[in-house]
């Protein structure tokens, strides 16, 4: 209580300082007067009495100061005075303040923006209840497409009974449905989940209820739970959405609730449904087929169990299964299951890119701080006189240090403030980048911890800067003032420090430039990859007519759909400017996940050799010409290759090389095979190869072409309909007319991915382009800062050596010689910086190997180009101070103090 009262009085005192001070003066004066009067009364003469009284007082000024200390908040007041002083000093040198503020803004802003992404995507605890107890299970095998196989229902059953470390296993099957709404059809990405899903995941509803075990199995009503994001975006956060019926895949589905915001893995989803929406998921195919793997699983560890324990138990279960079902686990493929903490699985794809960016930002900060340190050191020299005077007037080293700290803190806070502005813009850009890599991108924001991070950075940088400056040591300075020195000699220590900083700047710039160069070359290489289509003037679009259920259950619907696709194709082909229009699914340059084992007649697999697993694609007779895919051998499909005629296929170059090396595949026969065919409408009949098509980059420009088998559009179910339109020029302009035709024929169907080949390529290149652009702009920034740094240090050195240069000149050194002297000084720094930078880059670029395509991490061309560029810029930066040195007039220089 007392303390509080005193504190309040002190705080009040800090504000009523002026009035109280006058009052105190009066009081002290009255004390003095009374004492003087007393001495006079005792018989002293008034002057002596006054002197005596003053002597006894111990000094009025000192007393007033002591009272002030007691009355207000002296520490804060002193800091306030320092702040006031620092602000005045900074205002006096606006150029310095602006350069330092901006440099730090770049460094701090970049770090804050990227840190907020790293935090949101990798570091923040999961919103799930006890999210650190969740694990993701991944089954993988060797061979293409084997990186993540998912699980089959029988496998999940075996894991459920055989792994005591897992308290619950949530099943989740990625699926898409078409929502037929008032505003037309849209594709909705959903997860089909078991009733225990939300319980295992530890998620709660914000509205309504979530699915529960009663929603499992056949014969229940289809229900859906909206994700928070989809609810906000699609329904505007309407709380009346619960109970509403939506038409998904032509079935009525009831919205039962909205789940709390949370990331979904491995794909973002709009809603989660019970399995009943998909006949397939309840069919014997799904429930009995051990190799029918469509289910992702996330499990919760039992209390006390560890990830390693779960991993061991899962491995034991799998060893048993592999012995029991050898046909489902071909030893050649090395089936295995990894147990990964869920939060780690969520960050998997983003981790490398994000740490790259964080590293780059840290490098930029290093360069920025090095530059600011140099500027402060140079400014410090000009201020030495001031510091000496202050020290002589009694400011201790601690006081001077505090003053510097406050000044530097103001600078770094200015930097943080400006950097915060940059970060706000940067975060938006980065969040859209992160969306490609992480389901947690929605959690990225500039929040308290990020602000704290910025403040911490500011304080750290300010501290560092304050302790770099050398202060006049106590004592030993009066002599300098007496000697009339206006500055201490630039000490060797400081010069070495400055040069060290320049070397660091150059080295770090080289590392950044090397990274930027490699990523830029990656991007260029990628954009140069030939897609396999002979022309860029191709427009593709996908039109969905049948739901999977209709496709399987209703042959008549399939025939009708094919007729409508053909109708669209004919009308579009008749549009002016169209050279050819084809049908096929999926359209070129899009990957297909329909893959089966394949066998070739007269060719047996070597022991341990895996059967090829090509993609199944469909094409009509015009498809190859429309897409510009060359037929290397044989013929395209013909109108006569109909449902009733001989079964034919066209294979791509990759498959031909694999199955029939150095042979002509045309006329040979192949057939789909494998256990899984039983569950599909695809027959294992022999099919004759009639042609070989060129490879296309369907899995993205950076992925090797996969083996493909094309079946005639009419000899396969209409698993999807893609239109491929080729024009003589400006094919993009055809999109509206083509879309109108499709709309007229099938008014409610979903039209997707209306894209030209350049647009598809761009989609594949753009993440790399963004990487390259980000790192390049940071690299460029670094180089500019480094160039300014080296020029500044040399200029400073020149001005410090003006006298010496004057003497050299008057002794006969010509301007060329002086220039060379300064250039040599800079050249040494440049050379050391380059050498250490190239060495550093050699190691640093290995870390980004995974982000490169078509270049090795130590690509000599890039390294050479980077070194040359840095050298050129460095020499340019040295030239300015060198010229200035050469213009020194000896007569003036020698007279200068």
């Amino acid at each position, binding site marked *: 209580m007392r303390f509080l009262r005193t504190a309040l009085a002190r705080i009040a*005192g800090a504000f009523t300082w002026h009035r109280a001070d006058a009052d105190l003066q009066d009081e002290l004066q009255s004390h003095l007067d009374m004492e003087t009067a007393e001495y006079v009364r005792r018989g002293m003469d008034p002057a002596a009495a006054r002197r005596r009284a003053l002597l006894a007082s111990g000094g009025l000024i000192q007393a007033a100061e002591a*009272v002030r200390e007691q*009355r207000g908040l002296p520490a804060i007041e002193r800091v306030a005075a320092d702040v006031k002083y620092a602000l005045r000093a900074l205002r006096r040198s606006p150029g310095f303040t602006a350069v330092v503020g901006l440099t730090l803004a770049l460094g701090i802003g970049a770090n804050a923006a990227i840190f907020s992404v790293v935090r949101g995507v990798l570091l923040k605890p999961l919103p799930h209840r006890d999210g650190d107890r969740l694990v993701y299970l991944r089954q993988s095998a060797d061979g293409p497409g084997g990186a993540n196989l998912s699980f089959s229902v029988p496998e999940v059953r075996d894991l459920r009974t055989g792994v005591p470390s897992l308290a619950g296993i949530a099943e989740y099957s990625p699926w898409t449905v078409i929502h037929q709404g008032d505003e037309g059809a849209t594709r909705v990405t959903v997860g089909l989940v078991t009733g225990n899903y939300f319980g295992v995941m530890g998620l709660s509803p914000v509205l309504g209820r979530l699915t529960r075990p009663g929603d499992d199995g056949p014969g229940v009503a289809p229900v859906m739970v909206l994700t928070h994001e989809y609810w906000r975006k699609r329904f505007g956060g309407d709380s009346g959405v619960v109970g509403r019926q939506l038409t998904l895949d032509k079935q009525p589905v009831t919205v039962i609730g909205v789940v709390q915001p949370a990331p979904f893995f491995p794909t973002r989803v709009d809603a989660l449904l019970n399995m009943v929406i998909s006949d397939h998921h309840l069919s014997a195919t799904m429930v009995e087929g051990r190799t029918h793997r469509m289910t992702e699983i996330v499990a919760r560890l039992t209390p006390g169990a560890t990830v390693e324990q779960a991993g061991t138990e899962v491995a034991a279960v799998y060893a048993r299964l592999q012995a029991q079902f050898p046909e489902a686990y071909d030893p050649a493929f090395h089936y295995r299951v990894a147990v990964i903490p869920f939060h780690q699985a969520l960050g998997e794809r983003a981790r490398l890119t994000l740490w790259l960016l964080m590293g780059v930002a840290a490098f930029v900060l290093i360069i920025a701080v090095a530059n600011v340190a140099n500027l402060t050191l140079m400014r410090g020299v000009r201020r030495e006189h001031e510091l000496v005077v202050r020290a002589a007037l009694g400011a201790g080293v601690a006081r001077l240090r505090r003053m510097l700290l406050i000044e530097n803190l103001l600078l770094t806070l200015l930097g943080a403030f400006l950097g915060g502005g940059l970060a706000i813009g940067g975060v938006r850009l980065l969040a859209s980048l992160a969306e490609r890599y992480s389901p947690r991108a929605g959690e990225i924001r500039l929040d308290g911890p990020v602000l704290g991070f910025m403040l911490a950075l500011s304080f750290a940088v300010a501290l560092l800067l304050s302790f770099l400056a050398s202060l006049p040591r106590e004592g030993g300075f009066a002599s300098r003032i007496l000697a009339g020195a206006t500055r201490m000699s630039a000490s060797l220590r400081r010069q070495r420090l400055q040069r060290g900083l320049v070397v660091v700047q150059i080295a770090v710039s080289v590392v950044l430039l090397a990274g930027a160069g490699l990523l830029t070359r990656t991007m260029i290489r990628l954009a140069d990859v030939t897609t396999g289509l002979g022309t860029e003037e191709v427009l593709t679009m996908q039109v969905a007519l049948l739901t999977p259920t209709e496709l399987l259950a209703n042959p008549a619907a399939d025939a009708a759909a094919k007729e409508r696709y053909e109708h669209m194709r004919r009308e579009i082909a008749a549009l002016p400017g169209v050279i050819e229009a084809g049908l096929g699914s999926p359209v070129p340059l899009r990957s297909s996940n329909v893959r089966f084992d394949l066998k070739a007649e007269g060719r047996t697999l070597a022991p341990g050799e895996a059967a090829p697993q090509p993609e199944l694609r469909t094409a009509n007779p015009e498809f190859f010409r429309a897409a510009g895919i060359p037929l290397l051998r044989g013929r395209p499909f013909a109108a006569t290759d109909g449902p009733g005629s001989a079964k034919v296929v066209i294979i791509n170059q990759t498959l031909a090389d694999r199955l029939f090396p150095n042979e002509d595949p045309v006329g040979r026969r192949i057939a789909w095979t494998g256990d899984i065919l039983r569950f599909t409408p695809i027959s294992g009949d022999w099919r004759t190869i009639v042609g070989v098509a060129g490879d296309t980059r369907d899995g993205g420009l950076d992925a090797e072409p996969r083996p493909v088998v094309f079946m005639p559009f009419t000899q396969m179910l209409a698993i999807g309909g893609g239109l491929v339109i080729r024009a003589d020029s400006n094919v993009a302009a055809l999109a509206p007319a083509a879309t109108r035709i499709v709309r007229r024929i099938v008014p409610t169907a979903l039209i997707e991915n209306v894209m030209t080949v350049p647009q598809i390529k761009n989609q594949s290149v753009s993440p790399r382009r963004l990487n390259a652009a980000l790192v390049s702009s940071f690299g460029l920034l670094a180089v500019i800062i480094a160039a300014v740094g080296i020029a500044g240090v040399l200029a400073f050195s020149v001005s410090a050596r003006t006298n010496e240069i004057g003497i050299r000149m008057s002794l006969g050194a010509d301007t060329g010689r002086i220039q060379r002297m300064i250039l040599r000084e800079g050249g040494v720094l440049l050379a050391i910086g380059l050498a250490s930078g190239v060495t550093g880059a050699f190691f640093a670029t290995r870390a980004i190997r995974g982000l490169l395509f078509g270049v090795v991490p130590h690509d000599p061309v890039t390294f050479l180009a980077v070194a040359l560029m840095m050298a050129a810029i460095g020499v340019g930066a040295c030239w300015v101070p060198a010229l200035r040195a050469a213009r020194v007039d000896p007569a003036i220089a020698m007279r200068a103090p």
Partner: protein
Amino acid sequence: MPDKLDVKQGTLALMILKTLEVLGPLHGYGVARRIEEISQNRLTLNYGTLYPALVKLEQEGFVTAEWRQSENNRRAKYYALTAAGRRRLAHEAREWHRTADLIAAFLAPRRAAR
């Protein structure tokens, strides 16, 4: 000046409070004179010691201050004890006596008793 004493921390507040209790409202000069008299000039208070102590007591609410006319017609700032100040004085005095007794007992010549 071997018989000059430093004012021990905390004791000055006690002396001021006691002075105000005995003499009633008084200005800083009066307080200083009284303390010097009682100490028989072994204590001298300069302003830098006295006034911060007064300000502190005022902040703590043990004394109040107001400007008044003095007996010989000068304006002076008078300090007066508050109720809280009185309680504080009683408390501090008791504590002081106990401490003093204790210290005296400690410092008394050791008796040879066992």
